[in-house]
């Protein structure tokens, strides 16, 4: 009996050693995940999609029925706003033409622009049940051109970035899981001024449910309600992705730097279809690697 107890204790101790080893291995910043991990992620991703598709279909049918109820009212409203859009459409076309002319004058090609990107359409297939990890899985992976650190957006704005990539699926780190190690360089659009205020998104405030923005310069003109866009200067994300709206402008606890709380413009809880943003211009890290080679 004594022997068995020692054996049991021994096993648990070995278990703890393996646990610490595995945690230490997986917590470090890794560029690529190992092949077995990719296999498990892809296999579960495939099964999740197999379950997700029919369930999605059924829920869609129900929400469609819900939508049909309000069709008439919405139609009236849409007709009104359509007339307004005609006007803006004309303006946009004119501006676009003008923009093209101007860029052709200064010999700037499309791929030079920080704001251009190739979209990769993807569907969300699952969300981590462990709520401390703000991550969701999508059904596109390395084979579709997804790479680590790409920005992910929906129609309303940015939702996060690609955290890990396997061959056929990948996981997204949502905006509310961001911390100092993955900051975003942003611009705040100020209505009265020509110049934008620039700063960094440093993380997410759980209590306020808002992103924390730190400005590089003190700027009096920033007010609540202004829109925040990615500036493209961080080297990873393209320029001009909408991130959110300024909620409140204050200073930090020492009163030295100006900070703002930014409410994400897209709903992070209800995600179905997302777009992975593949920046056309080379990433800063990519070009660095090429130079090293």
């Amino acid at each position, binding site marked *: 009996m004594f022997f068995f107890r020692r054996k049991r204790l021994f096993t648990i101790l070995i278990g703890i050693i393996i646990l610490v080893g595995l*945690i230490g291995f*997986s917590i470090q910043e890794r560029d690529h995940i190992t092949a077995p991990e990719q296999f498990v*992620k892809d296999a579960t991703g495939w099964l999740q999609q197999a379950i*997700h598709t029919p369930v999605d279909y059924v829920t869609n049918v129900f929400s469609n029925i819900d939508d049909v109820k309000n069709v008439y009212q919405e139609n009236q409203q849409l007709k009104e706003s359509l007339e307004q859009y005609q006007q803006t459409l004309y303006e946009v076309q004119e501006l676009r033409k003008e923009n093209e002319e101007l860029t052709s004058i200064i010999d700037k090609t499309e791929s030079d622009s920080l704001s251009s990107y190739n979209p990769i359409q993807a569907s969300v297939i699952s*969300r981590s*049940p462990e709520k401390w990890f703000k991550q969701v*899985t999508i059904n596109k992976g390395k084979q579709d051109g997804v790479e680590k650190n790409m920005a992910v957006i929906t129609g309303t704005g940015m939702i996060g970035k690609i955290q890990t990539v396997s061959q056929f699926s990948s996981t997204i780190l949502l905006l509310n899981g961001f911390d100092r190690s993955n900051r975003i360089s942003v611009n705040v659009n100020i209505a009265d001024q020509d110049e934008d205020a620039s700063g960094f998104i440093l993380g997410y405030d759980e209590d306020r449910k808002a992103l924390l923005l730190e400005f590089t310069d003190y700027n009096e003109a920033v007010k609540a309600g202004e829109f925040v866009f990615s500036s493209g200067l961080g080297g990873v994300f393209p320029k001009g992705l909408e991130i959110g709206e300024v909620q409140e402008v204050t200073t930090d606890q020492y009163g030295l730097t100006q900070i703002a709380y930014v409410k994400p413009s897209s709903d992070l809880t209800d*995600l179905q279809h997302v777009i992975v943003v593949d920046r056309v211009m080379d990433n800063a890290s990519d070009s660095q690697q090429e130079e090293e080679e």
Partner: protein
Amino acid sequence: MSRLYIPLLLVLIFVFEGVAYEFIPADITQRDLFIIAHWTFVFLVLMALFYDMEYTYYSILAAVIIGLMTDIAYTNIIGVYMFIYALVIYFIHGIRKLLHANFFVAFLLTILGVALVDMGISFVYSFIGVNNMPLTGYMVYRLVPTLIANAIAFIVFYIIFKSRLVKWATVRFDNKK
């Protein structure tokens, strides 16, 4: 044939854990409550109580594998679920010799097991820095809702799987003798 059912069921429940989170209405998940589904663990408890014999350890093997899969697919940090699931299932497997396995014993052991698992996981995560919730907040916002949600899952699983697990166990282990 019945040997295949249990791994298949476990994988199915495991996959469903992730998919279900996409379909839970947003106004439930948007609140501050942390409801964590430990459905695979609930099934593993049932397996330890009604499938395993005293001398077999299939539930612990399954706990290690499913824990590892949960770590890889749903979190970034490998080893936490694997270790805690296996440890708690081992504990429940050991305690079952002392108790007669019926509905109430199974219910209490599941609640105890889920509480141990969740607290163990939070404890390990607080070391790594993933979890920085104060203890009282954790109790109110995470532990209690998680326990309630998993108790409901337990009742559903018990109704569906209990008699089947007993049947599969007799088919499997009586043939051996």
